[in-house]
């Protein structure tokens, strides 16, 4: 039998929800434990010293020196890194602080009396620090999509996410179009693969999976339209919610 691939599931600073989504795979989680040789996953085992991983799933953003150090170590040890979730991919909700003035101190001063003791780095996605091989986008990840990514990797195939907007799945599923109702939906310019889960609950798309194609003129045009609809300030807040403003407006 072929040797099993060594897997690590690791976390920078975040809500750890993407790891919980892996647990939420239910019976398929047990399949993952069969298909892969589980190196480290702190929800399931004590820490083990391991030199090499075939696959590293990493969630969160590096907010401390220790985060950055462990990210760099994981890069050295791992053949493939999958950035898991919006934090790792784009920055996540914590990146909101980047978009405010005096970000270094104002926010920390509000939360902490001894704010000088707090590590208060500019929030960046993993790709600003190390090379990333694949992305499982979304806040949280779509666990079905992640499972497919892992299966592809296990059989030596490069995982790919179809370059279709959220609108594609929204229409397929027959959900009412919120854009037509005058809501500032980012569905047309956001990478699909989430099964339009927000639209299912009658909530417009905030773009947590990032732009479908950052260079496309459609993005600029759509954002102009949304700006006319809700104004510049609120558009900025929508884009900032998941730390994706700098990804949509390059």
């Amino acid at each position, binding site marked *: 039998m072929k040797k099993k691939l060594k897997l690590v599931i690791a976390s920078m600073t975040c809500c750890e929800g993407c790891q919980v989504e892996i647990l939420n795979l239910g019976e398929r989680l047990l399949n993952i434990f069969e298909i892969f040789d589980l190196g480290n996953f702190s929800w399931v085992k*004590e820490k083990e010293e391991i030199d090499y991983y075939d696959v590293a799933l990493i969630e969160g953003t590096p907010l401390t020196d220790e985060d950055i150090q462990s990210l760099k170590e994981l890069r050295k040890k791992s053949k493939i890194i999958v950035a898991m979730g919006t934090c790792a991919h784009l920055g*996540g909700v914590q990146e909101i602080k980047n978009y405010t003035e005096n970000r270094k101190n104002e926010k920390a001063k509000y939360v902490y009396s001894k704010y000088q003791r707090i590590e208060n780095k500019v929030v960046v996605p993993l790709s600003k620090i190390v090379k990333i091989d694949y992305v499982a986008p979304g806040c949280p990840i779509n666990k079905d999509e992640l499972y497919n990514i892992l299966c592809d990797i296990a059989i030596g195939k490069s995982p790919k996410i179809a370059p279709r907007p959220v609108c594609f799945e929204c229409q397929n599923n027959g959900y009412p179009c919120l854009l037509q109702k005058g809501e500032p939906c980012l569905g047309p310019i956001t990478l699909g693969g989430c099964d339009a889960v927000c639209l299912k609950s009658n909530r417009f798309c905030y773009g947590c999976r990032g732009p479908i194609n950052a260079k496309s003129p459609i993005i600029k045009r759509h954002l102009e339209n949304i700006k006319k609809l809700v104004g510049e300030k609120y558009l900025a807040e929508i884009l900032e919610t998941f730390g994706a403003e700098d990804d949509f407006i390059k």
Partner: protein
Amino acid sequence: MKITINHLAKIEGHAGFFADILNGDIKNAKIKVKVGARLIEGIVLNRNYVETPIVTSRICGICSVAHNLTSIKALENAFNIKITPKAEILRKILFLAEPIQSHATHLFFLSLSDFFKYDNDLDLIKKYPDLTKKIVSIRDFGNRIKEVIGGRDMHLLSTEIGGFRKEPEEKELKKIYFAVDKVLEEAIVVAEFFKKLNYPDYERKIELVGLVGKNEYSFYKGEMKTSSGEKTSIKSFYKELSEEQTNYDPTKRVKHKGREFMVGAIARLNLSHSLLNPEAKKLLDFFGSKKTGNALITKNTFHNIYAQAVELVHCAEEVKNLLDNYFKDKSKILLVKYRMRNGEGLAATEAPRGTLYHYYKVDRYGIIRECNIIPPTAQFLDSLENDLEKYLSEAEIKNGEDRKRKINMLVRAYDPCMTCATH
């Protein structure tokens, strides 16, 4: 001499344990949280209130329902909104789904291995395949409820200030209703399994605090109660809390009138066990027959684990009760209209790990001007450290070989979430 565990596995978020050994006794036990500060209270500030519950949900991936809905409730209090009774039932069901999922995770994946001295849950899965299947099924059940009512198993989408953006499909709710009996049976088997575990013999008197409902074992609404007999409103209790930043990590430790206290399943069980559903109540025989009425049933912190198992059973039973009420209510409205206004709002609920507070002040343009969030773990870290000092200084542990394992075991019994504690 010092004891150091740099990385405590099987807790949510990163933390280490550090202590000194003086004449065999453990002193200065410290849990140092190693999660970065995301400054959540800072980042929602000066922004529109509409996105606040979306952002605060992301404080924690394992109790996102509690953060999302407590945030929503606090904002509703600020705007003086009364949701419909039907919407309230759905919220209460969501508040059961989360402990079902969270407790099942903690009981099996995070805590159980300690009792068998396994380093890896895969050994546990191999040894107890039937129990594994039941845990998976129970977790799936909790998640399914969140999907059907909340739109997703995490970071809910249909929940909104004023109620719900979308009505859950009746057909799917019925499926949940008919699945309860099987899940309840599974939960009882799990609880019976946890009843037979060998819990360390240990006691310390700690003030226990929790939200207590009028006629129900409450997660969503109620008044504050303490084990020393105080009963007070959420507002006045919140005013008596103080938060202090440590010198060594990004958490703030919370005290009530300057003193340590404990929250979570063990606190709720001690304060409200007379309100448990019938099957859950049967499981109290674990504590002996003498402990009835309103007396405390346990002072052993390790029993927090068993208390979660009892709650698992209670929650499964309660899902059915609440769905019965939901189906009886034929009214249609799930989202009430409201007028935004300036004001302040506070809400407290019981998250799986204990009482959770969200407070906001909103100006007349709907901009958040103040925000404070007090999660359960920040409230019990002091107690955890004090428990560690006492427990590790007891004779049989002091000289025992697997002291490190005992440290891990006690830490995990608390089920701390460092991600919440820092936020």
